[in-house]
């Protein structure tokens, strides 16, 4: 009872801070900007927050944080919009939303997909906000239980689950994962400082960026395929009689949203988790749990709801270790730590006690911001869908221009644009060959993290491989990976998969 009173008191304090006109205004500005950069492909929240930093020198720290946080979770909403409409992931976390979201759009259900994405995000945002309010510091300490071998086990499980991502040939899916891991090898090796496969080109020293590859593989290759198949020059989508999801959509989307939210919270807390990996994981899980996995890739509403919930939950859960431990789990949280330090505030265990107005104000503002985003986004759905009816000959050059601008802005470098172009051609060829790009991207994300943590585990253990089995977390997760692999490779299951594919 005391706990509840304390919680209500804290939330009340948060409301007082978050509802001041200035902070409400900053929250709205952040959310609007976030939606905008989310919709514009390539221009990500990281660059936007960085550009806004000098402005925050002149703001109150709480207001500054509320605005910058709004940009971040706002971009999670916006990112799904282009993914669904034109198969272009606005952010890396909306890559999987492309698969079924865009399939829904092609069937004329773009409005339903957008609405489900927005509502799933709102649900995830609400639950995550509550989770932060109730158990922030306690949840944060989970991150401290994870050491390098445990991350290795998480990555292995993730790569095994990635096979499930593909909706075609198992062999091709595995080949794509391996290809992704290979691309991930390019760059400077963390353990030794050696350069690998860089051919002396400076722009390859830091590896091939995820965003240009994702935009090329999905977005540009989609444009090429569209131009090839499109004899008539109509719009992309037809307008159905209703924009709102059906009762059946809601029935399917609800459990997926709940599962995606939980997954997002857990994975978002872990360093390197962010919002991308939870969205992939949620998609794999939904496909595995579905009674008819064949619908996935053909416009399954669970494939939109789960990942969208997961990426929003992951985005907001990242605030837990940042605020409560002072350890930023990803680049964006590191930026926010920087923004706080400019004001002389050090995030960490004492922040809740010493700066309660900042902590609770932020928590409550995140919930208000999520509500604002849904109110902003639902009426826009009609507009977005109308955009798709624009003749394609006007739409695709605009998309390409936005992609180039966005990718250039990542590092102010022309090489990123070149990477995107190369990935676009590669994506076109791969899709012609019937290879899915999603497993490749997962390999590209997980491969380098897997290698780094694997080698680090061995240097910590002095070369003893038993370290992976001695730690309870890694042992459990590795066992789960073996079971999952056995399940996928089991003759009966494989037979069924192949039979289903032939249907």
């Amino acid at each position, binding site marked *: 009872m005391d706990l509840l009173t304390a919680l209500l008191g804290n939330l009340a304090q948060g409301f007082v801070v978050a509802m001041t006109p200035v902070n409400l205004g900053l929250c709205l500005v952040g959310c609007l900007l976030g939606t905008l950069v989310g919709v514009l492909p390539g221009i990500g929240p*990281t*660059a936007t*927050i*960085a*550009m806004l*930093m*000098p402005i925050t*020198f002149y703001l109150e720290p709480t207001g500054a944080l509320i605005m910058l946080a709004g940009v971040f979770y706002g971009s999670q909403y916006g990112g799904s919009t282009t993914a669904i409409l034109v198969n272009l992931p606005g952010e890396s976390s909306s890559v999987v939303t492309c698969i079924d979201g865009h399939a829904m759009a092609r069937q004329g259900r773009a409005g339903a997909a957008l609405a489900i994405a927005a509502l799933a995000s709102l649900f995830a945002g609400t639950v995550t906000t509550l989770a932060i309010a109730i158990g922030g510091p306690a949840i944060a300490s989970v*991150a*401290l*239980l*994870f*050491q*390098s071998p445990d991350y290795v086990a998480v990555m292995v499980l993730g790569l095994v689950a990635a096979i499930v991502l593909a909706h075609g040939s198992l062999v091709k899916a595995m080949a794509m994962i391996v290809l992704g891991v290979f691309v991930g090898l390019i760059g*400077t*090796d*963390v*353990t*030794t*400082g050696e350069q690998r496969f860089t051919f*002396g080109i*400076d*722009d390859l*020293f*830091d590896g091939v960026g995820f965003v240009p590859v994702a935009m090329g593989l999905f977005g540009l290759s989609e444009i090429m395929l569209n131009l090839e198949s499109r004899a008539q020059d109509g719009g992309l989508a037809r307008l159905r009689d209703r924009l709102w999801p059906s009762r059946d959509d809601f029935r399917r989307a609800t459990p997926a949203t709940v599962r995606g939210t939980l997954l997002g919270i857990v994975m978002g807390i872990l*360093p*390197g988790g962010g919002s991308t990996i939870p969205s992939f994981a949620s998609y794999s899980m939904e496909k595995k749990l579905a009674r008819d996995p064949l619908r996935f890739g053909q416009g399954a509403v669970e494939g939109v709801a789960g990942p969208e919930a997961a990426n929003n939950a992951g985005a907001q859960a990242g605030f837990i270790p940042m605020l409560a*431990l*002072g*350890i*930023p*789990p990803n*680049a964006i949280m*590191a*930026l926010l730590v*920087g923004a706080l*330090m*400019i*004001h*002389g505030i*050090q*995030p*960490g*265990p*004492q922040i809740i006690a010493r700066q309660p107005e900042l902590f609770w104000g932020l928590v409550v503002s995140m919930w208000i911001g999520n509500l604002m985003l849904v109110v902003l986004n639902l009426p826009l759905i009609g507009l977005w869908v109308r955009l798709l009816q624009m003749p394609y000959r006007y739409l695709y050059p605009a998309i390409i221009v936005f992609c180039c601008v966005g990718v250039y802005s990542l*590092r*102010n*470098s022309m090489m990123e644009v070149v990477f995107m172009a190369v990935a676009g051609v590669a994506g076109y060829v791969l899709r012609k060959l019937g290879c899915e790009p999603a497993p490749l991207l997962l390999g590209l994300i997980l491969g380098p993290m897997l290698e*780094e943590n694997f080698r*680090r585990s061995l*240097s*910590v253990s002095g070369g003893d491989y038993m370290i992976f089995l001695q730690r309870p977390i890694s042992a459990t997760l590795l066992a789960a990976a073996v079971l999952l692999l056995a399940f996928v490779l089991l003759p009966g299951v494989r037979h069924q998969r192949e039979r289903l594919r032939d249907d």
Partner: protein
Amino acid sequence: MAAALAAGCAVIALPSAMAQAFPSQPITMIVPWPPGGGSDIAMRLVADAASKRMGQPMVVVNKPGAGGTIGLKEMASSRPDGYTIAMVATGAVFAQYNNPNANALSDFEPIAFFGDDPVVLSIGAKTSIKTLADYVAAAKASPGKLRNGNDQPGGSSHVAASLMERTIGAKINKIAYAGFAPTVQALLSGEIDSATVPAPDISQHHKSGAARSLAIAGAQRHFLLPDVPTFREQGIDFIAGTWRYIAAPRGTPADRLAILEARLLETMRDKGFIEKARAAGFIVEPLNRADTAKRLVAEDAAMYPVFLEAGLVRARQK
């Protein structure tokens, strides 16, 4: 004769008139690191404050990549007219030996030194080590056993750990992490015994008791960790960390360098600026051109043997 004299005067007067006018357009400050990091925040603070004194806006442009090499190459190959300058950090000393594409430090004309970001040796709460003397004794008793978290070979924290090994005369097991946040996380989770990271990354955990900072590798104590003595105070002559200075391409006219130097030093010596930078965790200790150049020679001489030992000298040899 009079006409010739007048013409001659005009020729002499012209450059100084131009110098008077400098800067007459915005100055680009290249930060060869991504937005939001320590270098970016430091330089945005400088640019913000210096714009008022220069009478022209100073615009920060991030050109990250290849450990700073890409951005510095852009600065070094830009027109040496004083309108393109850049921040150079510790990593540039390493890059010139490791990366054949990188510029040598001699390609940059130092303008002013910003300050040091010394590393702090910290230990996890679970180890039995209590003091720096304990740490040195433990390292000597079982060489290569103590696990220290740092960045990748060639990075400032790895170089610092290597220099520390040489100074105390004992080997430790240097474990590489991609950045300071994961290093601190590993220290708190008990994966490593110690870490060598800058003060702003660890001070919070030292205060909360989750980690304990034993010594700081600076000339003085750090305002974020006033209770942590320096290595020198404890009888070990060891200074290491990251430092930053501002430079222009080689060949920039001396009068323009002098103007930039004067304005930047005024900016960085301003009380208000120092306070602002302090709040963000930076020690501001500006040096003029000559002293910066001297400092660079000393740093270069100290670090080279470390790179050589790690087998990372690829490009130029000394």
